């Protein structure tokens, strides 16, 4: 779980992460409002993207290190709607978990948003766009983007904790590595599974309603033809 538990970030760190998260969230709400006004046909895709964040972030999976962690589910939203709208969706899930599940809390919500709803999706989005530009296979691109989207969330969590609690000997780096070994190593197998799951999800979106991806400029029309052609073999 990428949550930093309530009370585990001292001042000034929880305020700093809140200050970083807040503008992203506000801009996300603005972008969301714009999509709802001008582009209502893509709302089903938004619903599915939100649905996957809800489902996947509720699953706690056991991993190789003998502890449990959960996928983030943010990749679909990040790739199709970009990191800003994902920030809003992530905020809703994290708020629910902070208020009712005691997973994360209101003071650490800023830090948890930065890791799961902002930096992770940012990395996923730009990795997708970058690889797409250089014509890497579409499904491979989705896999890599979703994998990194998930993994980066936990790298950032480790960094947030390391910044607040640098080790007495070895300082920031030593404590970053220590937290990474807990968060990131556990996450690698889960991130692989998540990447594969999102490949399958994208396949079905392309089969069911490819226009939605065209409208969000995830793929261009001729690339979509190629991807569809590849699926029909």
């Amino acid at each position: 779980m990428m949550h930093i538990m309530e009370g585990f970030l001292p001042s000034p760190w929880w305020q700093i992460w809140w200050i970083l998260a807040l503008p992203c969230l506000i801009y996300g709400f603005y972008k969301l409002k714009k999509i709802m006004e001008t582009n209502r046909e893509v709302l089903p895709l938004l619903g599915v993207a939100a649905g996957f964040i809800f489902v996947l972030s509720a699953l706690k999976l056991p991993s190789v290190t003998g502890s449990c962690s959960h996928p983030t589910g943010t990749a679909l939203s990040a790739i199709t709607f970009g990191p800003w709208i994902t920030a809003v969706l992530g905020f809703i899930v994290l708020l629910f978990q902070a208020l009712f599940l005691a997973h994360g809390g209101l003071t650490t919500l800023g830090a948890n948003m930065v890791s799961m709803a902002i930096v992770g999706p940012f990395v996923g989005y730009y990795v997708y766009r970058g690889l797409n530009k250089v014509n890497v296979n579409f499904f491979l691109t989705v896999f890599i983007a979703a994998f990194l989207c998930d993994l980066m969330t936990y790298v950032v969590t480790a960094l947030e904790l390391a910044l607040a609690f640098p080790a007495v000997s070895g300082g920031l780096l030593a404590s970053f590595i220590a937290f990474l070994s807990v968060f990131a190593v556990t996450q690698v197998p889960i991130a692989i599974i998540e990447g594969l799951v999102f490949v399958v999800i994208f396949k079905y979106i392309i089969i069911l309603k490819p226009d939605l991806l065209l409208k969000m400029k995830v793929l261009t029309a001729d690339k979509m033809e190629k991807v569809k052609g590849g699926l029909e073999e």
Partner: protein
Amino acid sequence: MKYLFEIITVIALIVFTGVFLYTDTIIQAAGGEGWEGTDGVGSEMVEELGYEPWIDNSDYTFTPPSGEIESCLFALQAVFGGLLIGWIFGSLATERRIKKNPN
């Protein structure tokens, strides 16, 4: 291969489960508890430094009184997401079928 991605994903899930069962036997043999959440492990690392959390969820809402209630709330979260996905994918599939075969 029409179902290539599905097959890869299922194989990965089986390997994942196998690794879990294997790790679990090691942990059980060592007599450990194991399978805590990483956030709990991370928090313990911080507490070992002598840090005390300065605020708790029960200060403004509540912490789930038991594991059962926690699972219930987690399940509700997943149900809500699952409903959204199922409903929308269902509508899209129906829409596609009607378009293909208007009768």
